[in-house]
């Protein structure tokens, strides 16, 4: 390349060859300037591309790129200003037409100019980090036309108005993929939001839920169409979320709960299409589906209280299948509602006793329970819940109607066989036996024991018969230890070879407490609570950790006990007796903050135990079947196992498969060497 020194030489050299003088640049430029004018005036046909190209080339070569470039800018600007004026002058509808026309012309001109100045684009522009010609043309257009104050606001308003009109049913003149900029979108979204807000408000007042949803769906589709045709694709998600928010999210509760047309009405009347629409619209907004699920679940629970729920099971299966896309979360909600009822129905005796139902009615209620029971696929789940609740009722003395309990058990025995109820009867037996034991114990104590220390009533539970897991005892207060020991000695004296362990998580205690100002009360508390309270006989103030250490009550339990005795419990809290405690009644029962029986974690646990129990049952069935058939293919094994177990529960084919594999592993079965789908029994 030429260096400054050499340049002089070069020019000298050229001077001889191509008459370059200082005015050359100016002359050349003038030619080009003229050409640009002609191009803008639609007179390009008279121009020679080759000549113009050469001129531009020479200018750049001779280091007059700057002049060329700045000249270009000046000339285009001049023209654009004129164009701007002509557009501004256009009236009404012609405004957009004129704008569009001038835009087209500018583009054509720009292309020609770019071609002529290509050498400059390639060398001067890139070497000097300037904007290339085409882009320059666009940005000048933007600067002088679009951003010109008059045009800009008119343009914006026009576009918005056009869209508004189109939304309300009028046709939009086809703009084509014309001018679209960043600061169009923001006001566009704001205007849209207020449009939809208004429309939705209007419609929700006068439409039914189904009609409203139809309208919302229509609008959503239209917006998406509009975006594809007129707007930048980047705007799509933004405008969609505006519509979703204004039309759906803001009105969710109202829609779902609408009288005579809301979700409940749709469910009751099997409006599959409406339900499907609600599902697909609500799924677009946060919490949409959970809103539907919650309303559905509470509706089911309400309905179910009338013990008619199982009639509805098919119906809901169908709804979830056809309208709710077989959504797993809905299926789960349905199952848990049913489990809620299984549970509820297992507590039918509780309700009977609570409401003091008469003799005949008891029978009727129980019969209804049995009918439902027969429809249950998962009878073993029912059994688990039923046993747990019965055990609690028996232990805490909540059974008011012993007969009702016994009657239900008899019915279950008839239905399910001896095995189902044998353990239940074991529970009743334990209680009776304990009564006898207590009589023997008290009689044997002698008069001197009567005045000493606290009195206890013990129920001895046989481990296998009760659904609870045995747990470790906490530290009982010293005052209790002698009498506990006496009982233990008495019991083991009459029953050799047995082991007793105190279940402190299950007992109760009656405490007589003297508060300040001679307030005396008898508090009925749990054993754990008693242990905690007794600590305060020898200390005024105790920290959480001290209580924990002294009683050795497991943390979760401890927290709940303290919560029921105090208000809020933290690890670093200290506790002291509220001497100012007062109550109207002499006897006060302090409940424990409920462990939320049948809360989710507990339900999971029960479910898991049921699943574990099923495994050996499935295996036993497989072995029985294979033993008798010797050789059987996979599908038939599954079918037979299912048939054998269906009176208890519906086994999952995947679980059956896993059990088969486990049996293969343990060499009870093998696969046939020739046909891998066949199993053989190994003697």
């Amino acid at each position, binding site marked *: 390349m030429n260096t400054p020194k050499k340049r002089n030489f070069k020019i000298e050299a050229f001077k001889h060859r191509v008459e370059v003088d200082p005015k050359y640049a100016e002359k050349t430029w003038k030619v080009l300037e003229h050409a640009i004018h002609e191009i803008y005036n639609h007179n390009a046909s008279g121009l020679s591309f080759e000549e113009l190209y050469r001129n531009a080339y020479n200018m750049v070569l001779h280091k007059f790129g700057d002049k060329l470039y700045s000249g270009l800018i000046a000339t285009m600007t001049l023209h654009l200003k004129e164009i701007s004026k002509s557009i501004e002058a256009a009236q009404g509808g012609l405004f957009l037409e004129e704008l569009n026309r001038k835009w087209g012309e500018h583009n054509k001109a720009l292309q020609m100019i770019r071609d002529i100045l290509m050498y400059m684009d390639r060398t001067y522009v890139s070497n000097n980090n300037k904007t290339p010609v085409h882009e320059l043309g666009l940005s000048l257009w933007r600067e002088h036309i679009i951003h010109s104050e008059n045009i800009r606001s008119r343009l914006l308003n026009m576009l918005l108005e056009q869209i508004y009109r189109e939304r309300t049913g009028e046709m939009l003149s086809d703009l084509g993929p014309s001018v679209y900029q960043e600061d169009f979108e923001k006001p566009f979204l704001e205007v849209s939001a207020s449009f939809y807000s208004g429309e939705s408000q209007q419609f929700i007042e006068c439409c039914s839920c189904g009609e409203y949803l139809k309208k919302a769906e229509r609008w959503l589709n239209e917006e998406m169409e509009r975006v594809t045709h007129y707007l930048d694709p980047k705007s799509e998600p933004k405008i969609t979320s505006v519509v979703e928010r204004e039309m759906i999210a803001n009105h969710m509760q109202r829609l779902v709960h609408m009288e005579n047309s809301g979700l409940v009405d749709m469910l009751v009347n099997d409006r599959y299409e409406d339900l499907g629409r609600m599902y697909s619209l609500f799924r677009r907004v946060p919490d949409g589906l959970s809103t539907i699920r919650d309303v559905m679940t509470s509706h089911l629970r309400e309905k179910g209280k009338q013990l008619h729920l199982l009639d509805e099971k098919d119906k809901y299966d169908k709804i979830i299948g056809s309208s709710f896309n077989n959504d797993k979360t809905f299926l789960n909600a349905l199952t848990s509602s049913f489990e809620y009822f299984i549970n509820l129905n297992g507590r039918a005796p509780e309700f009977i006793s609570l409401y003091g139902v008469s003799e005949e009615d008891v029978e009727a209620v129980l019969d209804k329970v049995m009918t439902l029971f027969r429809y249950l696929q998962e009878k073993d789940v029912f059994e688990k819940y039923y046993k747990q609740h019965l055990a609690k009722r028996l232990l805490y003395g909540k059974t008011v109607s012993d007969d009702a309990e016994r009657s239900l058990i008899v019915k279950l025995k008839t239905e399910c066989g001896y095995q189902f109820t044998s353990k239940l009867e074991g529970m009743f037996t334990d209680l009776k036996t304990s009564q006898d034991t207590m009589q023997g114990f008290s009689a044997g104590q002698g008069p001197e024991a009567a005045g000493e220390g606290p009195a206890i009533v013990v129920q001895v539970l046989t481990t296998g018969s009760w659904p609870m897991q045995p747990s470790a005892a906490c530290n009982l207060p010293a005052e209790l230890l002698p009498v506990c020991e006496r009982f233990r000695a008495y019991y083991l004296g009459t029953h050799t070879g047995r082991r007793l362990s105190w279940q402190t998580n299950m007992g109760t205690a009656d405490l007589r407490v003297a508060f300040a100002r001679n307030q005396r009360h008898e508090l009925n508390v749990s054993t754990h609570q008693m242990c905690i309270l007794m600590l305060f006989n020898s200390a005024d103030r105790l920290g959480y950790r001290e209580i924990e250490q002294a009683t050795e009550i497991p943390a979760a339990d401890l927290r709940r006990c303290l919560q029921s005795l105090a208000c809020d419990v933290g690890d670093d809290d200290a506790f002291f007796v509220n001497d100012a405690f007062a109550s109207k009644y002499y006897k006060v029962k302090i409940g424990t903050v409920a462990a939320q029986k049948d809360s989710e974690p507990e339900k999971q646990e029960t479910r898991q135990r049921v699943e574990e129990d099923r495994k050996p049952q499935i295996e036993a069935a497989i072995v029985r079947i294979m033993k008798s058939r010797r050789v059987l293919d*996979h599908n038939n094994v599954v079918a037979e196992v299912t048939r054998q177990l269906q009176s208890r529960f519906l086994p999952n084919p995947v679980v059956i498969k896993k059990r088969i594999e486990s049996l293969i592993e343990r060499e009870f079965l093998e696969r046939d060497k020739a046909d891998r789908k066949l199993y053989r029994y190994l003697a």
Partner: protein
Amino acid sequence: MHKLARGHRDKIQQFMMITGAGDKVALQALKASDWHLDGALDIFYSHPQIRGVIDSRRLEELYQRYKDPYGDMIMVDGITQLCSDMQVDPQDIVMLVLSWHMKAATMCEYSREEFIGGLQSLGVDSLEKLQEKIPALRTELKDEQKFREIYNFAFGWAKEKGQKSLALDTAIGMWQLLFAEKNWPLVDEWCQFLQVRHNKAISRDTWSQLLEFAKTVDPSLTNYDPEGAWPYLIDEFVEHATQNVLAPRR
């Protein structure tokens, strides 16, 4: 030997050179053929047991070379030495084939019976002969039936003594090795799937069924039969693969 005539001695040398057998074998064969070399060779090749029985001394020597100093087994050191002498990588699959011939109970050890019995069945009594056998061993992997036997053998051989199942890491290593021969395209995805989702030991049934799976189901899983009584792990793998990995391929 010293009683032999010169011509006989030559024939013995020749016989040994051609067959690679030992001198005792050569003597026996030539005597039986009345010192006709061709006849002796004929006898030798049609009576393979000749090779074995007589050379048990050499086999014993070989065994002694590799056996552990403190026990009557060839252990890791011995095997390493053996591989080195054979000029074979201990990770080479040919060692698996060799172990299969030996009916070795567990990897990284050979009992006396296994070692000697195995070599005998191969008709080998020296290191050189063993080395010569290597290409033939490799070829056995190409045979469908033999590959299946070797594959199934590998399970018992690779697992820990006394364990019923094969540790996952070992299983993956073996699968990589074996399926490199078979060229099963899904081996990596299978191994990855197991590490993420299963992370437990592999049962024998799963092991053996996997080979059937690799042979019968094509890599795009289009002909997979969900009613096909495949082990559940394979069912899960197919579900996983059709959701994740294969989707982009389609």
